[in-house]
């Protein structure tokens, strides 16, 4: 599907000019995933497949509830199950809906070399515009959450769109619509943060002192947030990063180094040009020819 002419970009990959942004008065949205209310039924995962017309290849049972075992180009959201024995020796079944976090400062977009292949709308959604994707895999290196996957058939990168097509039309994302327990909520980021606060107060009162909101500041916050019973240890939940941030290696690669490098290359070329202007070419002189002839005569001319 071509770009919807959204005219509400706040970021556009590999672009040095301001992208079309006149319609930028949207409110920021967020999806709130309340892990404590999730029953692991995977209705959201099915709804995602259905709305987006995605069919992953049928795999084999691996001895885990995770199905498939990892995100793939056709699996944009995935329930990840963790069995954790807590300090009291009780089993806790931690279930997390994995997928793109829609970072406020998206590492994928920062790393992308193709103009307009990744955009961020004023509502905060980070979207891949596949027509512009060149399949290099830089977004994978940029992402702190290991989310994008490249389809080997068309060499395009895919991930959750936060149902940008539905959201533009005033609908909530498909996963939100399908969730039978209300564990996935969708609305403005302010409302979702407030709602999370109520949920956390409730969890606190029921003995989860460390319950909290996962909206990691290292990536400027996210437009997909979690309510976690153990917000002090996000990595319990199938390796959710404790303090995600764009890797400093990516920062160095994509930062000031690039313009400086281009300036350096231009300076080298200019130095050559001005050397030519000032000193000029190094030409063989008649004396050189004469000396060479003398030398060769003296040592017997080569044939």
């Amino acid at each position: 599907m071509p770009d919807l002419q959204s005219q509400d970009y706040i970021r556009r990959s590999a672009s040095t000019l301001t992208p079309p942004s006149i319609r930028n008065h949207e409110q920021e949205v967020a999806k709130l995933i309340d892990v404590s209310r999730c029953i692991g039924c995977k209705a959201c995962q099915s709804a995602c497949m259905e709305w987006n017309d995605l069919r992953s290849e049928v795999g084999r049972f691996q001895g885990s509830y995770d199905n498939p075992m990892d995100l793939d180009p056709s699996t944009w959201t995935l329930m990840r199950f963790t069995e954790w024995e807590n300090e009291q020796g009780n089993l806790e079944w931690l279930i997390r809906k994995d997928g793109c976090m829609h970072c406020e400062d998206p590492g994928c977009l920062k790393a992308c070399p193709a103009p307009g292949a990744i955009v961020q709308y004023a509502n905060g959604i980070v979207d891949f515009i596949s027509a512009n994707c060149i399949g290099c895999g830089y977004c994978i290196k940029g992402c702190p959450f290991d989310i994008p996957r490249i389809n080997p058939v068309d060499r395009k990168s895919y991930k959750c769109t936060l149902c940008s097509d539905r959201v533009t039309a005033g609908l909530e994302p498909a996963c939100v619509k399908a969730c039978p327990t209300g564990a996935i909520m969708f609305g403005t980021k302010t409302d979702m943060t407030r709602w999370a606060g109520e949920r956390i107060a409730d969890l606190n009162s029921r003995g989860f002192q460390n319950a909290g909101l996962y909206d990691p500041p290292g990536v400027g916050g996210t437009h997909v947030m979690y309510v976690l019973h153990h917000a002090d240890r996000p990595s319990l939940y199938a390796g959710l990063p404790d303090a995600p941030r764009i890797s400093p290696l990516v920062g160095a690669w994509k930062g000031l180094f690039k313009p400086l490098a281009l300036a350096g290359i231009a300076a080298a070329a200019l130095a050559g040009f001005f050397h030519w202007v000032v000193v000029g070419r190094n030409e063989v002189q008649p004396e050189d020819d004469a000396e060479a002839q003398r030398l060769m005569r003296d040592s017997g001319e080569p044939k």
Partner: protein
Amino acid sequence: MTHPKGTLRRNTTAARINHWITGGCFVLLVLSGLAMFHPMLFWLSELFGGGQWTRAIHPWIGIVLLVSYAGMIVQFWRDNHWSRQDAAWMRAIGSVLGNDERAIPEVDRFNAGQKFVFWAMALLVPALFLTGIVIWDAYFSPYTTIEQQRLAALIHSLLAVTAIVVWIVHVYAALWVRGSVRAMTQGYVTPGWAWRHHRAWLRRLAASGSEGPRPRVSTGRQRQ
């Protein structure tokens, strides 16, 4: 391999073909690499049929470059050993840049600047190849961690910029020193050119009665 009478053979036909395959690959790699390096240069991808093609073709050209440069190393390394005179030449770099030949020590087949370009590329090309493999997502992404790929991407781009600067020095030197380009296109130079720029090389050729590019290995065999 014909060359006008009275001139000296500077580079064999094989060396010249090898050189221009290397140079062609390098230029294509610079253009396709820079397209992905900075948004201002993404338009270069149109030269390769668009972004997808640019991304896909760049590493394959890299493989040809690696093989081709290996050939260059085989053909040229013997004349690129570092020597004491090279240090003296380096110290006289001001005179070199000022076209003041009298103050520069005699140079054999290659001067210290040429040797520098040779060895710099001998390191840069394999290093670019190794880091390039790590970020060749289509075929090699399963063999490394994402963190290793991040590092490889950073190093690849740093090395690329270094290689481009070395290459600019190389190209400018060839244009600046009149007669050098012909040495790599038609393959020959005049004795005057050799006297001016590579006097020790000329002396060795003259002494053994060779027309170049290397002196005759005289095992008692007579010149005809």
